[in-house]
């Protein structure tokens, strides 16, 4: 369907739609959200194209509120005038019937906070029509040449998003994104390697390298051996680190933290702002204008998205106060950091291996679930490349482990940090907290993380899945 130059609604079309819907409303406050996403996805399995999945998804949400009553929202994917009118009528009827709920808050929305971001890449749009025919066969061939079986994902997408409010806020943004991931399996099914790259600009993805990496990880060393679980030094590649940090946006939530529910809560009440929470080499930031990890400069009802430093040299600097909660605490608002950059360090992955007397190199973690928000305890399994490192060298591939640990512990047991990269997520099954939120489906907001060398990581049991 992507013969047109632009696969998703343009700014002018979004503006027209927003005005059309706002004109239908009569509630005291109204916000309209429109998201239009076009995707071109190819899935590979058993050295062949498994499925092609193309299409577009339109989502229109209408939120209305009458003074002193709770906010109500309805949503649809239909754009016809009749449907929209009916949806607005439904939403306002429900909103008028509400009692209780929030007072009508005149929240500060600051369009002048919108910083220019460049999330749209024509190269990605061009790739949506062109890439499948060249990239996919090349990927399969490359893995096959290594004598391995490829499974993989090649996804490109374009999206436009807009927020309109009755108070006159208009925020419009667009973005593109892409990801290539490959699982290379040995013919006897005893080993696999996983690699990936993600970028807003399709042109920067080196898919041949992804195939080679996956193959290398599947072929390094000989027989897979089981070794004892226990606390061991771990070298975590970016694809492993990003899975550990998947749930971290919630930890920075100021309301939850002040209520004693996150790892940044103080036992005596309140939060740990100003305290050292991690190793001094850890700095975490979010910036909508980050060249690798950028995102929309507005969120929710058109609030400006500020650049934030959450942790600086191990000290907690800020928490994310929501636009509802911030004003009651005299704090500026910010969005929970779905996109995060963790500053890196000078040690490359080979350096870390060379510096490691004995440890486990973990390429990726799969099926990570959050066990306890308060301590950040996670459980996940190593996958797509897990090796014993001895005397500064990769010794042999080992059977996978289940890890039971928390970023709050691991980031305090840091030995070394490597260069940062936008980490590919690959497929991650949405957790309970994530499954109703489309922001957690592919593509997620970019996370920029380094590889890490940490000591005493808890490899709690063998998980001998391939």
């Amino acid at each position, binding site marked *: 369907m992507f013969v047109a130059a632009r696969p998703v609604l343009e700014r002018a079309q979004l503006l027209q739609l927003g005005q059309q819907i706002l004109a239908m409303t009569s509630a005291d406050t109204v916000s309209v959200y429109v998201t239009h996403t076009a995707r071109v996805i190819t899935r590979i399995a058993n050295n062949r194209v498994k499925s*092609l999945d193309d299409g577009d998804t339109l989502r229109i949400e209408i939120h209305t509120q009458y003074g002193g009553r*709770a906010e109500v929202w*309805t949503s649809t994917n239909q754009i016809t005038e009749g449907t929209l009118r*009916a949806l607005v009528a439904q939403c306002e009827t429900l909103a008028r019937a509400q*009692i209780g709920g929030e007072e009508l808050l005149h929240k500060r929305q600051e369009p002048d906070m919108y910083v220019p971001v460049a999330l749209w890449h024509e190269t990605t749009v061009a790739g949506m029509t062109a890439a499948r025919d060249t990239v996919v066969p090349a990927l399969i061939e490359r893995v096959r040449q290594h004598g391995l079986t490829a499974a993989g994902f090649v996804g490109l997408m374009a999206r436009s998003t807009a927020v309109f409010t009755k108070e006159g806020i208009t925020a419009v943004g667009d973005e593109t994104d892409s990801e290539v991931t490959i699982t290379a399996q040995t013919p006897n099914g005893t080993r696999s390697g996983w690699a990936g790259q993600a970028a807003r600009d399709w042109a920067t993805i080196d898919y041949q390298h992804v195939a080679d990496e996956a193959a290398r990880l599947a072929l390094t060393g000989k027989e897979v051996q089981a070794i004892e679980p226990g606390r061991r030094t771990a070298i975590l590649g970016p694809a492993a680190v990003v899975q550990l940090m998947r749930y971290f946006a919630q930890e920075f939530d100021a309301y939850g933290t002040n209520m004693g529910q996150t790892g940044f809560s103080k036992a005596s009440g309140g939060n740990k702002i100003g305290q050292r929470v991690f190793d001094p080499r850890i700095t975490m930031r979010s910036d909508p204008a980050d060249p690798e990890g950028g995102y929309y400069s507005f969120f929710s009802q058109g609030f400006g998205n500020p650049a934030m430093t959450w942790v600086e040299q191990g000290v907690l600097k800020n928490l994310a106060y929501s636009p509802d909660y911030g004003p009651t605490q005299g704090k500026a608002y910010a969005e929970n950091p779905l996109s995060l950059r963790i500053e890196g360090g000078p040690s490359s992955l080979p350096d870390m291996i060379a510096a490691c007397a004995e440890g486990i190199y973990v390429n990726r973690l799969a099926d990570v*679930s959050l066990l306890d928000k308060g301590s950040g305890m996670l459980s996940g399994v190593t996958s797509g490349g897990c090796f014993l490192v001895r005397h500064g060298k990769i010794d042999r591939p080992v059977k996978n482990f289940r890890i039971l640990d928390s970023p709050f512990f691991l980031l305090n047991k840091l030995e070394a940090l490597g260069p940062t990269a936008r980490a590919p997520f690959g*497929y991650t099954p949405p957790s309970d907290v994530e499954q109703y939120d489309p922001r957690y489906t592919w593509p997620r907001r970019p996370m920029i993380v380094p590889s890490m060398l940490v000591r005493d990581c808890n490899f709690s049991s063998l998980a*001998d899945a391939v």
Partner: protein
Amino acid sequence: MRQHPARFTRRHVLKTGAVALAATTLPSRWAAATPHGDSPRALLPETTLANVMGPDVLEAALHAAITAGATYADVHVIHTRREEWQYFVGLDYPAPWWDTTLGLGVRALVKGYWGFVGLDGVVTPEMAAAAGRTAATQATLAATGKPRIVALAPTPVVTGTWTTPIDIDPFTVSLEEKADVIGALNDDIERLSINFGVGTLLTLIRQDRTFASSEGSVTTQTLYQIGGTVSVTAPRDWRTNLSGHRASDVFTMTGAGWEYVRQASVAVREEAPRLIEDALGSRRPKPVDVGRYDLVFDAKAIANILGTSIGVATEVDRAMGYEANRVGTSYLSDPLAMLGTYTVGSPHLTVTANRSMPGGAATLQWDDEGVVPRETTLVEHGILTDYQTTREAASWLAPYYQQIGTPVVSNGCAGMYGATDFMQQHSPNLVLQPGPHEVSFAELVKQTKKGLAIVGGESFADQQVLNGYGSGEIVYEIVHGKLAGTISGAQFVYRSPEFWKGLVAVGGARSAQTFGQWRSRNGWQGTLQSITAVPVLITGVAVMDMLRQV
């Protein structure tokens, strides 16, 4: 996120809101195609999806796909309505979230390669034709690789209409009644014990689905799913500072109409005193002693594990590596070698799959390939006997089916959540078959000298479904056949083959309970299945301490 607790109660709504609610109109997808196109109109029962996206749209998509070279094509138009009510005591009047989506998806098969295009919203015949053409063209381009043989298992051409058997369409029930049922249920439970938190989540789903294939099948189905969760939270204990939590066993997701909510809310009231007692009693636990235990699982706990282990491992696309880079693979990885011989568990283990049981959340007449699902036995007395299949996947297993003299047909496990989600496997309803003797949870506890009893909870498995772990909502110690105190931090860790081989006793038919489970393979929306299970006793399971900190 609500940070401003409300100051009013539901009763105010019923007084002040009634007039406003009476005037409610529902968004209508038909509006565009009716003469009064631009005016909102109430939902008319006699209106059908065909008024907006009728046979001409389906026909256009199929015709275009076949003309563009597809040897097979199918098309879906799916309209989903979803309404969610959340009610937590201490918060305000439940504000339903209301969603409606409509779309078309067309799938084309060219030289063994599938193409798929999904379009949102109202699709005209011209757009449908373009989508069909694109799906076939994309598949043609993909087919430049190694030729691939896709044999779709034969299925009779079907035409017809089917609706989930219901008494009351929940979308015709007034908002007042919905608010009243949820609010009154919460009030009644709250009244049973001071300071208890009660939370209710109610989800109503109606899907109108039209399917047509190039083989000539045309079906129209209206599927209803309804239910949710009711849970109680005990206040923190003054000594341990722990609260207790327990969710209802009788209020769950199911394939039914509004009558289910009416019946279940009565059952929850009967169950509530026990839930409260359980939650209160769980607040002074003993830390778990790490080790190997005999575990008695109640029906809900084992239903959960069944769903995340055998229920996933018998998905044939995973077993054949087609999901290796996505949801994962399966330890039952060599179907043709394993079927009929591989020991999945002890002889007490028999698991069947169906999409026909009354009230089942995955129940329907035709799956998304127009197949009438057949009931099948996945594991019989511990031996692997079948997988969950689609038409394509059934042909992969043809040598096995021929050997045992069973026709090579799909089990009817093809599914797509919405029209724009590409087709994949859909979990069927699962049944862990009861044992021949009427054994209850209490009797299994009585049989256990030293062990733990796992009540409710959740479980997870790795990408190969080989190693899993989980925990109970409440875990009790069993000492000499009796439930002693509760245990904290207990996390059972298992390897599937050993775990299911440790199954030494299963409950009787009267102890069977059914639970609706969300499956999130499709991403954030998820699909539903029902799992029927009986309490079980499994020996020698490793138990760890998940609360152990450094």
